[in-house]
């Protein structure tokens, strides 16, 4: 089984621990990732806030590259990237005119039929039975609060993934691997996303709320599938503790971390040792 791979800037930058985790985990499952040749940034919030055309063109270029490289299924582990790719794709699918215009803008032909997948969808395609078959270590010590954030399920009509109010796909996978996910109330609340630099107060406030709710519902860790969520909940956790005079002490794992651990990989090979909050 192989998938096209669009890492996006974060996984090649400060969230390279996520990149490492995804690679190690999927490698152990026998999946080969074929990275897009010379991909470019999706534009993220900056593009859709300031320039509508750019917010379509940047992801459209990457979709066109995937088509050129012959990669019909494309894993984009960053939900911001996959959401932007899918938004561009549905805009392109809506009209022949748009397809022509943007083919011209990005200087590559676009059909717009690439299947863009997030990490959870790739694990689903690999199959729960397969993953369970390769698992060697039950995750019974883990009581994770599965955190989906905004962009794994919103906007629902574009992403068409899971239930946008009560998602449960991560829980389904982790429960199969022996973990005991908790029910809690902030699965789809926003952590403050990309406001870290521009408005740290918002990020600290929203992320504090999420960490507190997870704790109140007896979670002993949080599981995410998003580099931005990880930054805000893990890297910022010491700042949150200081600001709100508390001690959350909640390790934040990527979904691929826990699946990787179940498959018998060690923390080092998954990059867990590079997180800020580590389990003592």
């Amino acid at each position: 089984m192989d998938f096209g791979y669009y890492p996006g800037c974060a996984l090649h930058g400060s969230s390279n621990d996520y990149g490492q985790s995804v690679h190690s985990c999927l490698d152990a499952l026998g999946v080969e990732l074929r990275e897009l040749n010379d991909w470019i940034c999706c534009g993220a919030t900056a593009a859709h806030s300031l320039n509508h055309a750019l917010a379509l063109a940047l992801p459209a270029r990457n979709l066109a590259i995937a088509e050129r490289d012959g990669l019909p299924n494309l894993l984009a582990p960053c939900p911001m990237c996959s959401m932007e790719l899918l938004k561009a794709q549905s805009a392109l699918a809506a009209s022949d005119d748009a397809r022509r215009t943007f083919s011209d803008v990005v200087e590559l032909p676009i059909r717009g039929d690439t299947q863009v997948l997030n990490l959870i969808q790739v694990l689903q395609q690999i199959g729960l039975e397969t993953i369970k078959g390769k698992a060697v270590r039950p995750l019974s010590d883990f009581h994770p609060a599965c955190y989906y954030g905004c962009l794994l399920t919103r906007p629902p009509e574009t992403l068409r993934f899971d239930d946008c109010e009560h998602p449960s796909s991560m829980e389904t996978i982790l429960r199969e691997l022996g973990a005991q996910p908790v029910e809690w109330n902030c699965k789809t609340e926003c952590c403050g996303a990309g406001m870290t630099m521009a408005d740290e107060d918002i990020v600290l406030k929203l992320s504090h709320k999420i960490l507190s709710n997870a704790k109140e519902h007896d979670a002993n860790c949080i599981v995410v599938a998003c580099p931005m969520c990880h930054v805000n909940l893990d890297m910022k956790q010491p700042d949150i503790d200081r600001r709100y005079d508390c001690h959350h002490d909640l390790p934040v794992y990527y979904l691929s971390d826990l699946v990787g651990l179940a498959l018998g990989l060690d923390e080092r090979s998954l990059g867990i040792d590079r997180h800020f909050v580590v389990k003592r």
Partner: protein
Amino acid sequence: MARIGVFICWCGENIARNVDVEQAATQVAELPGVACALAYKYMCSDPGQSLIRQKIASEHLTGIVVASCSPHMHLRTFRKAAAAEGLNPYLVEMANIREHCSWVHHDRAEATAKAVELIRMAVAKVRCDHALQPIAIPVTRRALVIGGGVAGIQAALDIADAGYQVVVVEREPSIGGKMAGLSETFPTLDCSQCILTPRMVDVGQHPNITLHTYSEVESVEGYLGNFKVTIRKKARYVDVAKCTGCGQCWNACPSKKTPSAFDYNMGTRTAIYVPFPQAVPARPVIDRNACLHFLKGKCGVCAKKCQAGAINYEDQDTSVVEEVGAVVVATGFQLYQIGKERNGDGTVGYGEYGYGEYPDVIDSLQFERLVSASGPTGGEIRRPSDGQVPKTVVFISCVGSRDNAKGLSYCSKICCMYTAKHTMLYKHKVHDGTAHVFYMDIRAGGKNYDEFVRRAIEQDGAQYHRGRVSKITQENGRLIVRGVDTLVGEPLTVEADLVVLASAMRPADGVEPLAQKLNVGYDENGFLSESHPKLRPVETNAAGVFVCGACQGPKDIPESVAQATAAAGKVLVMFGHEKLAREPEIAKVNETNCAACFTCVRACPYTAIEKAEIRDRKGNLVKRTARVNQGLCMGCGTCVALCPSKSVDIEGFTEQQVYAMLESLE
């Protein structure tokens, strides 16, 4: 030899302003067959009609054309005038030179030319007209009422009290409908059961009413005045004739844990049960999905307890056929299923409100049971999760209503009123409690309605917040309701012990297949269509079928009752005649020509065409043919368009006439 009179109306200025009526009269006088043509200021007035009658007599007219307004307006007037002078009324044609001409054109010369053309076509048509006779249809003076809620009860009692037989069919084990489960009713706060149950008893005891409960309409044949309705009586496993309703059986039944549908799953009932104590008939049914006898083959406690020997485990569904002349549909409503409505491949809507997930988020009918003296808590307001008295209750309006994205686009009309009522009933029972209402608009149009809402706010202190709720979560047994008050422009979070969702009103389950059986139209939401929204509000496009209550659109009790009485009135108008006269302009098969392909039988939207056989005197089959049922045909012409051998025509509107009209144009 045709002698046609043409009468052109000025309609005061309405026509004469833009059409030169005198010139038109001069021009059409020249048309072949026209014996006289004249204009007059008001043709529909008494002198106008006299003019027509004089000319019919003096000119020995064989047909007339009145060029004036729409035939909807005055065709009947002119036909009556002609008939009074001995001319067959179906030899009267109209040319609409007002709506179709003078009102929509401003160039006088062009309008006049068009008026002449329209008259020319009408003359061509009347030349091919022949005398027709109205169709007389016998009426079975017996009515069927489908649905035994407050609307059905009212309609049935009105018709029965007028002296006619009524058959009532109710799907549930008892009549009473949704109203039987309500607590108190707005705007007077009188007890729902106190005002309804005497009327239920009246239905049960009325000598003119035959009641079929736990029964459904299976099929409908026939037509206006002559319906044959097959009713399936579901197996009750209790012989109603023998049973005395003593209650020994249900008191002894060991299976006690079935959620009670009458209490909207807020309470439980036994396997053999009456839905509520005042049920009519007060006879139980056995729920075979809960009964140990049916599930495990043992038990039989009810049969042992019953001294009347009324328990019959071998009972089967049976069918009865009832012959009736008119049908009143009063199938009522159900609530929009919050978070469970199917749309294509998935459910839609309101995951954010946690209904079905948090036990203390309930819908409005469930709240009615919580405050009802006959409800599962005996009228004490106790929340489902832990039986505590809720100190803060949030009521949310427009759940499912006015929500294009997740629910239904329409306003359910009654929720503003019952939500105000709910806050009052709550405050009357929990004096130290707080009632919050999140609303978008308050729609309280009705006698004493707005005053009622103001009382809830001003006297009972309900906290009204203008804004929708975005999300409900549960923390430590309390519900966190995240809303907004747009009037202060601030988000507002309320911690509540109970949340009541004012769910939208939808037509009852199964109304669409029933409508199809009755040939009654319905809209995209499943509400039955009335014939005309203003002038024929209880008639349907199926002759002899009437609607009332919430199956036609969201409405409250007073409106349902008023509409039910109106429907009963229309039935009584029908029953005032021994025979009904129908206009004869319907399809007629040329049985000699008919090739018996029966394309028409399959195409007819009113199932008005039957397969028939022509036999000679000895009974030998001569040929097969299609034949039109005169009671059912609505004269739509679908069969005419489809008949490959051109063997069917609409009387008074034949293909020959249509072609003649077209050919008359220059």
